[in-house]
């Protein structure tokens, strides 16, 4: 599994209130949520994000509210992976559960600039910055989480891949 896209970069402590403001939480529609993604810190995001783009941030990404609407909005925007120095723990669980790829990598977070062309190999955890000709090794998932992702997310893993 691989990803390739342009980096969109934010800072530290990007909270779920700015990822998807509460005024839009009455809906559960991914496309409707995506149409307001990041709007409280970056009104240009929705207009410029392209399918496959990679979101890069600093520490504690996704802090605050447990709203799963936040990773849903990011995924439905077309973002192929979020790279951060660290993730808030509820966001981390939610992203895995809904199948949004996330990687913890301090060096990538520091090295990648807004607009850089970035490739990711999820099997090896190697992030390549094609613009700067650099590469960074991300922390791989624990085996337990790899198995959950391989079986298609949390719900698929508890149903054994089929409905009960």
């Amino acid at each position, binding site marked *: 599994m691989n990803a390739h896209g342009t980096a969109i970069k934010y800072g530290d*402590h990007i*909270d779920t*209130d*700015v990822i998807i*403001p*509460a*005024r839009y*939480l*009455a*809906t*559960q529609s991914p496309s409707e949520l995506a149409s307001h993604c990041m709007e*409280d*810190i970056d009104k240009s995001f929705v207009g410029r994000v392209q399918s496959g783009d990679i979101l890069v941030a600093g*520490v*504690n990404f996704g*802090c*605050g*509210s*447990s*709203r*799963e*609407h936040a*990773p*849903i909005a990011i995924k439905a925007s077309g973002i192929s992976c979020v790279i951060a120095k*660290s993730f*808030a*723990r*509820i966001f981390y*669980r*939610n992203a895995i*559960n*809904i199948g949004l790829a996330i990687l913890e990598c301090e060096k990538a977070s520091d090295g990648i600039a807004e607009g850089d062309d970035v490739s990711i190999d999820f099997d090896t955890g190697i992030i390549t910055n094609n613009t700067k000709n650099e590469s960074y090794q991300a922390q791989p998932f*624990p085996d*337990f989480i790899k198995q959950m992702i391989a079986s298609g*997310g*949390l*719900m*698929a893993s*508890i*149903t054994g891949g*089929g*409905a*009960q």
Partner: protein
Amino acid sequence: MGMTMTQKILAAHAGLPSVAAGQLIKAKLDLVLGNDITAPVAINEFEKAGFQTVTDGARITLVMDHFAPNKDIKAAEGCKKCRGFAKRFGLEHFYDVGEMGIEHALIPEKGLIAPGEAAIGADSHTCTYGALGAFSTGVGSTDMAAAMATGETWFKVPAAIKVNLTGKMGRWVSGKDVILHLIGLLGVDGALYQSLEFSGEGLQNLAMSDRLTIANMAIEAGAKNGIFAVDDTTRAYMAGRCDRDWTVYEADADAEYASVIDLDLATVPCTVAWPHLPENTHPATEGGDIEIDQVVIGSCTNGNIEDMAAAAELLKGRHIKKGLRGIVIPATPKIYMECIERGYTRIFLEAGCIVSTPTCGPCLGGHTGILAAGERAVSTTNRNFVGRMGHVESEVYLASPAVAAASAITGHISHPQEVVNI
């Protein structure tokens, strides 16, 4: 190797003799919680996976508190979905308008959680019940859906930061000041992935309402959970609320902690968190130049009767500043009733405040007190992120009920002693 309180509860719920930090476990759950925002997403996932039954309906609690009473048609549809799900599975603990309160005040009040139990909730402030010596933590909707189906969930066993409390809080200082002060010390990710475990001789000087507020905001330091050692205050609180047998788990003497913080409660000042992070803490006395437009007293953090009492003490016989909006939200119907019986409702109304039905409303910028561009609020809620209470150019200052009430009277951020000479 000894275990922390959290590790002991998790080991017991995983059916293991012991667990260690970093270990991945599956744990049985005593309570699975959702609200009108998060449960509809969970119900969609539950139905999409094709589940026909819940494992144990008596352990599932749904509370319609965030956008209820329904703020718009979409909110009404979300509550309707929850109502239908509760009916389909005969859920006893479904709380709709009239019976509902703000979930993290309602659940302890009704004895739906007890010491030593394990809970998850699709709401980040589910960590509140650590005040009772329970393990409880916030998760997302898909985790909630899976837990409704299986009665269990997976956890990575957390390491812990021990907070050793000594001393006694000063006049006008409350649990809110303690937790804001602590978040100021730790930072908003200072306890990331870890437990905050509160113990020490200072515990005897903290009322249950203070502990509930402190545990509630453990998430604001990034913590997985906050938890208090069980003592006589806990036992007195639980008396008459819960007929289940419950277990006290004490940390082992040789439990390992990632770090230990010694906190003398006497040194904690009335504390306010400036925008836009809860770690931006200042003594309330530094806020004299900050003019405000609105005060909110309520929320899962500070909507208990003790919080109402602290506000009423200052507002009695006084009026909030002309032009300022004062919004008081008792967290549950029982607390609302008690405000009427104790005369607080009259005090609030005569002071120029409104007294709202229980709701999370303004805390998350949902309804009942949204801010316009350039407006500032002092609020007893838990987050002051960009746009949290409304417009992205509005500002939220987090404070205790006493500081919020004093600030409502003066029109700027005020220490209570600016209003009363005690």
